C-alpha cells in the first residue's frame, strides 16, 4: 500500500523475486514481457485545454484511430500512463496540471502537443501564460505544430514506445529537445527590416541545429551505448523566456 506522497515507486514483488534463487534470469524475462506489454498499452490522459484538443480528438476518431496501438483515452488520471498536454497552459491552470500529473501512478510519461504546450507559442510573453508545459512537468515527447496534424499524435506515440524500449534495454535514451530552437521575436519589435533579417538568421540557425549566435546546442550522441544518464541533461539554448 503506497500512499500518494510523490515518492518514486518500485513494485514490492520485485524484491521477493530478486532474492529468490535463480530469480534474476526469470526476472529479466518477465521484465521484458511486462515492459513490452506496458509500451503497447499506453492509456492517454487528455490534458486538453485548447485548439490542439480538437486535433487530439480527431486522432482518436476514424482517420487516425489511436485505438489501433492499444491506446484508450480515460478521463481520470489514476488509470492513465501518458499525459497529453494539448493546448495553452495558463497561470491559473498550471497548479491543476501539476496536481493531475502528481495524481498519475508511476510509471508515467508526458507528451507536449502543439507549440503552446511546447513553448507558449506567441502567447509566451503574455502575463497569464506559462511558457511551455516543461516548466511544470517533465516532457518526454514533443509534437511541434500549431496545431499538429492528427497523425502526428500517432508518430509521437511510436516515438514514446521507442524510448520505453531503449530504456528497457538499458540503453542510453537521448532526451528529446524542445523543437523550438528559433528565436522568438519579442512582442512589439516587429516591422523593422533589420530585425526581420535577424529573425530570419535565427530561424536559419535553428533549422541547422545551431543555437543563439551560431553556438552548437545539441549534445552529440555518445559513442558508447551506455552513457551516464547525466550527460543528456545539458541543453543551454532553446529557452529564451
Amino acid at each position: 500500500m503506497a500512499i500518494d506522497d510523490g515518492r518514486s515507486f518500485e513494485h514490492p514483488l520485485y524484491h521477493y523475486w530478486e532474492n529468490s534463487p535463480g530469480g534474476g534470469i526469470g526476472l529479466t524475462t518477465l521484465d521484458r514481457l511486462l515492459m513490452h506489454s506496458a509500451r503497447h498499452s499506453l492509456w492517454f490522459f487528455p490534458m486538453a485545454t485548447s485548439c490542439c484538443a480538437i486535433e487530439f480528438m480527431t486522432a482518436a476518431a476514424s482517420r487516425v484511430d489511436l485505438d489501433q496501438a492499444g491506446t484508450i483515452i480515460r478521463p481520470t488520471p489514476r488509470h492513465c500512463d501518458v499525459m497529453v498536454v494539448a493546448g495553452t497552459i495558463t497561470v491559473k491552470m498550471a497548479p491543476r496540471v501539476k496536481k493531475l500529473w502528481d495524481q498519475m501512478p508511476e510509471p508515467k510519461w508526458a507528451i507536449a502537443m502543439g507549440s503552446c504546450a511546447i513553448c507558449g507559442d506567441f502567447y509566451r510573453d503574455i502575463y497569464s501564460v506559462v511558457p511551455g508545459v516543461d516548466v511544470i512537468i517533465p516532457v518526454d515527447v514533443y509534437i511541434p505544430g500549431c496545431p499538429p496534424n492528427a497523425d502526428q499524435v500517432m508518430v509521437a506515440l511510436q516515438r514514446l514506445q521507442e524510448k520505453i524500449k531503449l530504456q528497457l534495454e538499458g540503453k542510453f535514451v537521448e532526451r528529446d529537445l524542445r523543437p523550438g530552437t528559433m528565436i522568438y521575436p519579442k512582442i512589439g519589435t516587429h516591422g523593422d527590416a533589420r530585425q526581420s533579417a535577424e529573425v530570419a538568421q535565427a530561424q536559419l540557425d535553428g533549422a541547422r541545429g545551431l543555437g543563439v549566435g551560431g553556438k552548437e546546442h545539441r549534445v552529440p550522441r555518445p559513442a558508447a551505448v551506455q552513457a551516464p544518464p547525466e550527460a543528456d541533461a545539458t541543453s543551454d539554448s532553446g529557452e529564451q523566456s
Partner: protein
Amino acid sequence: MNLRQRDRINPHLDLDTVDAAADLMALNMGPQHPSTHGVLRIKLFLDGEVIIKAVPYPGYLHRGVEKLCERLTCVQLTPIFDKHDYVAPMTNEQALNIALERMLGVEVPRRARYMRTILAELQRLASHLLWLGTFTLDIGGTIGGGASLMMYTFREREPILDVFEMLTGARFHYNTHQVGGNRHDIPDGWAAAVKTCMDQLAARMPEYEEQCVTNSVFLMRTKGIGVIETPLALELGLTGPNLRASGVDLDLRRDAPFHAYDEIKVNVAVSNGCDTHARFEVRIAEMYESIRIVRELIDNVPEGPICSLKPVRTVNQIKLPEGKQMYTAIETPRGELGTWLIGGGAEKGACPYRLKIRPPSLHAMAALPYALVGHTVSDVVAVLGSLDPIMGEVDR
C-alpha cells in the same frame, strides 16, 4: 410559478439563507473534466443530486489576447484571431477583417465576398458537426452511443477540413483572410470537391438526426431541460442558435448582412422550445440550411480579383485612423461575434489602440447559473453541451 426566470433564480444566492438542515454538498466540475468542453470549472451546490446553485468559473484559458492585440499590427492579428474559437477559425478571421475594413472604409471585391460566404457556411457545418458529436458524447457517454455518433461526425468533418486544406494549406488556423479580401484564390477542382463533400453530408445528415430524434432516451434527456426563457436570453445577451432556440428571430446574416448574404436568401430556423432540445433542433436545421447555401453559391462565384488592396509586404502597411471607434459584429456558428475597435495604437497607428472581442460563448456561459438550477448533475453536461461553448472564446 409565473415569476420570470430572472426573478425566480438568483445566481448570487447566499447559501447561508438556505435551510441549514439541507446539508449541501459542493461538487467541483472541472477545470479538467471530460464534459466541460475544455477547461470550464463549475462549482455545484447539491442537495442530493439536485442543484441549488451553480457558479461557473471561467478563465482557465485566459491567454490575454486583448492585450496581445494592442501590441500586434492589423496584419499580424489574423492568425491570433484563428485561435479564439478554434472550432470555427474561418469566421473569426472574417469578424476581425470586416471590422478593419469597415473602419478603413475598404470595399471587398464581389468574388472575395462570395468566397467568404462559402467558407463561413462550410465552417458553420464543420463547427456544428463537432458540436453534434460532443453534445451526444456528453449525453451518451464516452463508452456508448454518443461516442459512436461522435466518430461519425468527426468523419464527416474531415472532408470539410480537406476542402479548407486545398484552399489554404492548413487543416485549421488558416490565416486566409486579409484586409480587403482573401489571400488564397480558389484552386482547380475545388468546387467539385466541395460539391462531393456536400452531397455526402446531405445524404448522411438525416441518419444522424434520426439516431437522435427517434431515440426515446435522447428525447427524455433533452426535452424540458435547461430552459432559458426569452426575456432572460435577451438580457443575458445570448446570440446565434442559443437565442433563436429561445424564440427570438434574430440572425445577423439576414438582418444585418455582411459578405454576400445580402444577395442570397437565408432561411432562419427559430424554435420556441427554449430548452436543450430546441437548441438541438435549431442547430440541425442550420446545418441543412448551410448545405443549401453552399450548394447554391458554389457554382455562382463571380470572376474577378480576390483582394482590393495590394498584397501584404510589411506588417505595418495598414494604419488605423486615430480616435475612431466602432462596434462591428458578424454571425458565427456560435452567435454574434463582435469587435470593439479603437484605432490609432502603437507603431504609428498600425496596431489597434484597443480591441475588445465580444465572444458569444461567454454570454452563453453566463446563462448556466440560471439554466442549471433545479436540475441534476446529469443535466449539467446536457445543458452545457447544448450551449456549445468554446473555452478559447470564453476566456480569450
